[in-house]
């Protein structure tokens, strides 16, 4: 089994690196709709920062910051953001995911509304991808018993 890692160099470097990884993830998500990147890629990078923490420390370290209940809730919350934006278009009288119509509720014109709604969808995707990746990793790392906390 995986031994708890006490290497001070690895832990310090991870501590320094994590904010930058997460910032980059947010950048990739935020720029997804008009440059290479997007919710999936950004979500993966965001998850990588948590996975890095788990590798450098242990499962409990990540779970103090991101409890299992929270990841579970985030998985559904991301999908709900995506589907909710689509449904909002439907409520306003356009077809599902026809973001242009959202200019009626947002203080911008139709073209801008489309861009903003796409960003919203990317954020939803990013949240779900991040939560799923972290959840899968923690499950694999602790053979599905991560509710017990530490890794043996």
């Amino acid at each position, binding site marked *: 089994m995986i031994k708890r890692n006490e290497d001070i160099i690895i832990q310090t470097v991870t501590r320094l690196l994590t904010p930058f990884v997460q910032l980059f993830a947010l950048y990739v998500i935020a720029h997804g709709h008009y440059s290479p990147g997007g919710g999936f890629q950004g979500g993966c990078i965001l998850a990588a920062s948590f996975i890095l923490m788990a590798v450098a420390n242990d499962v409990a370290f990540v779970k103090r910051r991101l409890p299992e*209940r929270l990841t*579970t*809730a985030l*998985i*559904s*919350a991301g*999908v*709900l953001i995506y*589907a*909710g934006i*689509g*449904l909002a278009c*439907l409520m306003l009288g*356009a*077809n*599902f*995911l*026809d*973001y*242009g119509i959202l200019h009626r509720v947002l203080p911008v014109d139709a073209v801008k509304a489309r861009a903003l709604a796409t960003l919203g969808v990317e954020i939803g995707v990013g949240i779900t991808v991040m939560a799923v990746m972290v959840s899968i990793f923690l499950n694999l790392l602790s053979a599905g018993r991560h509710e017990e906390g530490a890794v043996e």
Partner: protein
Amino acid sequence: MTEHAPVLIIVIPLMAACLNILLGLWKKELSYPWAVLVTAVVFGLSLLLMQTVLSGGTVHYRLGGWAPPWGIEYVIDHLNAFLAVIVSFIGCIVAVYSRRSIEKELPGKQVYFYSIYLLLITGLLGITVTGDVFNIYVFLEISSLAGYALIAVGDDRAPMASFNYVIMGTIGACFYLLGVGYLYMVTGTLNMGDLSRILPGLSHSRVVYTAFAFFMVGTAIKMAFFPLHIWLPAAYTHAPSAVSAIAASTMTKVGAYVMIRIMYTVFKPAFSLEVIPMSAILGWASAAAMIAGSVLALGQKDLKRMFSFMLVAEVGYIVMGVSRGNSTAFTGAVLHILNDAFMMACLFLVAGAVRYRKNARNITDLAGLHQEMPLTMLALFAAALSMVGVPPTAGFFSKWYLILGTIKAGEWIFAAAFLLSSLLNAVMFYRVLETVYYTGEPTPKRQGGSSAAVNEVPLTMLGPILVMAVGVLVLGLFSGRIIDTVIRFTVPEGF
């Protein structure tokens, strides 16, 4: 709301699956009523769609308002609506049924079960409503992934069975995707309507042949078409009872639907049956499926395993009807999709009930069970008659059309295969029903002389079983009307 029904039918179960997790984090007991409510709403929506299609013809829906062929288009004609009604109805019935059996088989995991269950429904319905070949792949993966997860939580051997299914299913989905890729390479479009306009001009392209081959093998794996069925019996035997019922009755049918769409909508019958001799290839393979499925079923001791091999034979029936190239056989195949969904749901629900009450899996354990569970065994009897093809049950009518279709095509040997498979079914069900009704010790009389204690399954399980059993009879009686109002419009042009 009516005009948005094509997309709501997918968005509602998708959102409900996610909301269910949040609901479950708050109150665990809510997830069962929630799943039943959602599947009932979805069934209502599918009926609404059917109504719209029957009165106004094909429904088109543009996702995001983008015009096809650039955007994704949902197209619902008679065949789509027919499949959507079947899937959502069985989804609703099995959801009702699942309460007690899941309580027993997966204690404490109901919330996650129902979330994945709703995702499975989302995927299956998505395949039936979309008019875009790539979108079908996406929904195929949603339904398959949900299916893998649901099967893996079954008994001790389920993870291995599910793993085999993952390998085979992924190869199938991958082949399907390669087919889509090859078509996109030569046509530059993913929309089915657009593809069907472009492809006739390309009917001698090697790339198109390759695409067609990939599509056929991919869908054959997904629908467990003999000899690519090897994942199915283990997966459906070891899955939880409710999962076996929904998977056996709808997943293979949706695979058959995809095959029909690819053969006759994306490609034209002239291509599928004449340029490529699919009629002969699929005909012989289906005949082999029917015989092999039935023979293998004969050798099984486990009830669910026996039904699974029968399902392999039934898939052969459907593909045989689809590939004959005449309207009688095609009508029979589409009718058989409906009938087989009901029969398989009924059989697997009964197997689940037996497992729930007696903790038994083998046919020999059924001995004398008609005294303890009279109504459940009556339902098994009805489904058995239908599987054998005794009038007036549903199975008789679809087999009648299928056999007439093979005779019309002049292929007597395939008609003989149908009869042989039906006879083997009769032998098998004779064995089962004999065990149920004529073996086992007569239950000792209780004090006061009253006969055996009736110990039926709870009402939430018994109700769905009886609905399915009655359904098998009602569908038989109304099969003429079903054909007149829906199925005759599904027959492709040129038949």
